[in-house]
């Protein structure tokens, strides 16, 4: 009896080790480019290949931490993505409310359109958007870029917000309605406080998405003093022949940092289970 238990537990242990090894093998394939980023940033003579820095130095950071190279693009990125996120989240909360609480005939087609639009290749409409922005004088303005970026994030954001809002029971609001509260009061004082973890997910997810967006600001903005970090990294490193790898890595690290930190906040808040997976059930 006891021997059969040990055989079984040994077999289980063996299969766990096999699974762990398989997982580590995949991770090894994934980690090398990241490792290069970490090491090259601190190596003044970094090349394209992974190598241990000797000596470790902050020279690369000193070189890129200037107003024109880092601070201004970061600031522009913060304005652009912060503004875009704000517009997106406000518009999605408002739009999600009727979609979550009322039944109306256009609801299903509207939701299907939203789902369809989440995957719309934004790249495809950049040409006409460029034409539109030239005609209405929004080209190369931060406000125009903010509005457009907010719109690109809107479909997925509405979809996620509606799913999170569906999780708040409507009975709680009905009590408030009988006390004479309006729908918007109910939204503000009952629904939003109850769905703030979901709202945090939408906010952070939207911001990370916009922060990484290259093509939209690349097409819509042209003045150097308005470019966000995503585009300036390209104009700084991509266009002048010989690449200084160490500085590229240092700058990439600085530029990626906000996205990484926000993701950590996001996953910590949700106890690891990134619950937007629940929203992808369709």
């Amino acid at each position, binding site marked *: 009896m006891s021997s059969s238990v040990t055989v079984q537990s040994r077999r289980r242990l063996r299969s766990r080790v096999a*699974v762990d090894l398989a*997982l580590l093998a*995949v991770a090894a394939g994934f980690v090398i*480019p990241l490792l*290069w980023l970490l090491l090259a940033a601190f190596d003044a003579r970094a090349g394209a290949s992974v190598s241990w820095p000797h000596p470790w130095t902050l020279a690369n950071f000193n070189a890129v931490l200037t107003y024109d190279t880092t601070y201004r693009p970061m600031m522009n990125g913060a304005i652009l993505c912060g503004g875009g996120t704000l517009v997106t989240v406000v518009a999605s909360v408002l*739009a999600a409310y009727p979609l979550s609480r009322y039944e109306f005939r256009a609801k299903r087609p509207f939701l299907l359109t939203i*789902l369809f639009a989440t995957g719309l290749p934004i790249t495809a409409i950049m*040409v006409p958007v460029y034409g539109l922005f030239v005609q209405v004088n929004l080209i190369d303005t931060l406000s125009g870029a903010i509005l457009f970026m907010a719109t690109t994030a809107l479909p997925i954001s509405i979809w996620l917000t509606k799913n999170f809002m569906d999780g708040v029971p409507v009975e709680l609001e009905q009590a408030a309605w009988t006390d004479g509260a309006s729908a918007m009061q109910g939204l503000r004082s009952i629904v939003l406080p109850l769905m703030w973890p979901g709202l945090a997910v939408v906010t952070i997810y939207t911001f990370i998405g916009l922060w990484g967006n290259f093509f939209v600001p690349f097409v819509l903005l042209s003045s150097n003093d308005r470019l966000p970090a995503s585009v300036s990294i*390209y104009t700084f490193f991509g266009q002048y022949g010989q690449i200084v790898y160490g500085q590229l890595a240092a700058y990439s690290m600085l530029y990626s940092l906000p996205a990484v930190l926000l993701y950590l906040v996001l996953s910590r808040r949700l106890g690891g289970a990134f619950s937007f997976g629940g929203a992808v059930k369709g």
Partner: protein
Amino acid sequence: MTVSTAQAPGAAPRLRRGLLQGLPLGPAVVLLGVFLAGPILYCIYSAFTDMALTGAAGAHFVGLDNFREAFSSGEFRQSLLYTLIFTIVSAVIGQNVLGMLLALLMRSGSAVVRALVSSIVVGAWVMPEVVAGYLWSAFLGNDGSLNHILGLFSVPGQNWLFSVPILAVSLANIWRGTAFSMLVYSAALSEVPKEIEEAATVDGAGTLQRLWSVTLPMIRRTVTTNLMLITLQTLSVFGLIWTMTRGGPSNRSQTLPLFAYQQAFQLSQLGYGTALALVLLAIGGVFSLVYLRALRLEDRR
């Protein structure tokens, strides 16, 4: 006034209440209408004109000329082919299968390994696409890490961005996107009741058999939705390819977004560029219709 008298009493207040209830949709509908639907309609219109970047006033209706020109051009057919290769290799096969594999393995790995692996894979996903592009150009270049690793096994090095550009950018896209599928599938698998899988094991099903006939069917809706999302995301990848190869060498990694960008902005052929963009939109539409149809068939079962 005439409308309200023609309708039954009570219809007007009901209509007003309906409008009031729908009012919060306003900002979203306006933004989507102006910046998304507007450009798409404009896209459809200008694809049938000979509009150029410099003289928008002199646009003439040219019917299907742009499309005829596109489909008869070898460069276009080539970029169409590369778009399909890129999408199928990196999204439908790469991200999807690898993400599922990781999600399945994660369930029975030990906690430490699980945390380590998922932070590395998610770390790749959190990187902005331009950074991912630079990391992979460094990794695959002449002096890159890959050649150094291959050198240890005395495999001759090469610049992978030149020898197999479309595979190089596909690989980078798999690296960048796998975490998304992994997270989605992990969430879905965590909702599969343990009892059902255990029952299958008790009935004598092997691991693969249980996976194929019990676990996967239970999350098939998630698989379909995830496939739709990653396919559409991959169709519109621009920054990653642009930073790695700019579509080269000699257009051998030029997918449709890059081709349309080149035609519209670098060669100022707005009409032709938007016709290409329209083809891209249509491909995205076809893919989504297939997936949505699969979902609807699921609903009926």
